[in-house]
């Protein structure tokens, strides 16, 4: 590939080799540009809808502190969503439409978020497994060759650190009682299956292309491995048969199930999308939004 003139040279890595940076998404070669637009929309939608699930537990969490933490985490997710939606302007998408004018079938949030969260263990499964999956994916962009992207990653990850600590602490607390372990099992099994495939398959050419282009630093299989390594010690406390110890750490005891998987949206093809009334109306801010414009 011939580098465009607008690219900037920078030193990189311990070997002192140089690599080119992209100053804007317009400079990205296809199909990496399209694949990254897809991925950013997946991340933005998932964070935005995850924020609603956290917000639903501000009141009614097991402890006051957990409710306050959910408030802070909801706020963070919406802040990250706002940054990510804004970036999509440069991918030919209209952030205003993305944020406020789409129906359920257009959302790319994980199908785990399609229905309201009914129990604290369900929320905890989202907190530990899905939220961490998002962070592993975003962390892989820390050294992205697309500059506008890597300039936003550190702040997001700074804020996400506390989400992981919260999830880890509460999982340990659930693991400390028979009743807690019993209630946590099914939500964790469901979230494990969904998050395991969320990174995409090793055969996914678009996702692997992003790694080859240096937009993210690893292909889907490696990202999945990083995610398993991070969450497995906690998962082993409540649902041990999902994970297994290996020579170099942890692995999944089950394989990803690709039946019905749609790589571009990172959703199951037949899943209907987030509940329009219970979730999306609030995600879009439907009620009273008409007061703000003509």
């Amino acid at each position, binding site marked *: 590939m011939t580098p465009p003139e607008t690219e900037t040279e920078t030193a990189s890595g311990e070997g002192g080799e140089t690599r080119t940076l992209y100053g804007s998404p317009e400079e990205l070669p296809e199909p990496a540009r399209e694949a990254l637009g897809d991925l950013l929309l997946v991340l933005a939608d998932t964070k935005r809808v995850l924020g609603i699930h956290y917000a639903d537990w501000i009141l009614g969490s097991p402890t006051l502190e957990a409710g306050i933490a959910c408030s802070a985490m909801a706020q*963070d997710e919406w*802040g*990250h969503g*706002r940054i990510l939606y*804004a970036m999509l302007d440069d991918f030919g998408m209209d*952030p205003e439409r993305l944020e406020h004018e789409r129906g359920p079938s257009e959302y790319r949030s994980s199908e785990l978020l399609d229905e309201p969260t009914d129990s604290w263990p369900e929320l905890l499964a989202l907190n530990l497994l899905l939220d961490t999956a998002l962070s592993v994916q975003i962390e892989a962009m820390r050294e992205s060759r697309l500059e506008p992207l*890597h*300039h936003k990653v550190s*702040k997001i990850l*700074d804020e996400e650190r506390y989400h992981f600590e919260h999830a880890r602490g509460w999982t340990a607390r659930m693991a400390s009682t028979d009743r807690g372990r019993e209630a946590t099992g099914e939500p964790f099994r469901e979230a494990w299956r969904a998050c395991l495939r969320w990174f995409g398959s090793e055969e996914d050419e678009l996702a692997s292309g992003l790694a080859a282009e240096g937009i993210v630093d690893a292909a889907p299989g490696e990202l999945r491995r990083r995610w398993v390594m991070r969450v497995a010690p906690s998962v082993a406390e409540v649902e041990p048969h999902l994970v297994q110890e290996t020579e170099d750490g942890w692995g999944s005891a089950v394989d990803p199930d690709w039946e019905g998987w749609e790589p571009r949206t990172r959703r199951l093809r037949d899943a209907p999308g987030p509940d329009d009334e219970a979730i999306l109306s609030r995600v879009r801010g439907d009620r009273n939004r008409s007061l703000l414009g003509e």
Partner: protein
Amino acid sequence: MSDRLVQIERSRPRGEGTMDWSGVAAATRGDRPDLDVPQWDEPAADLAEEARRALYEVPDPEYPISLVDLGLIYDVTADDASGRVEVTMTFTATACPCIDFIRWDVRERIREIPGVSEVSVETVWDPPWTADRITDRGRRLLNRAGVSV
């Protein structure tokens, strides 16, 4: 700061001009006798310096220190001839609920400077803000207010 490092977070300017935050600004700026504004013996060397000094009068909505002492102002540049001022700043959190009116406040305060024709405020997230960015002066003021940092 080079253009390369300035990443404009594009969603924020949307709606600017449609929301009047003057009431909030009056509360956060005009009625803040607790704000300790430094005094200078020498006049500002140029418009950029004058604008930077003016931002010592814009407090954080929560803490009794200025945005400058809190470490949120990353860069102020100005063109003396045209009167155009550009502020590059960050916020403590990506979903800080005060982003809109802090930006409004920054712009309005700089607009009060004679000769200023245009003010742009750009939001960046890199490097991320941490408490390490609070100035020594800011730390003293916070300690005096009973906030330990």
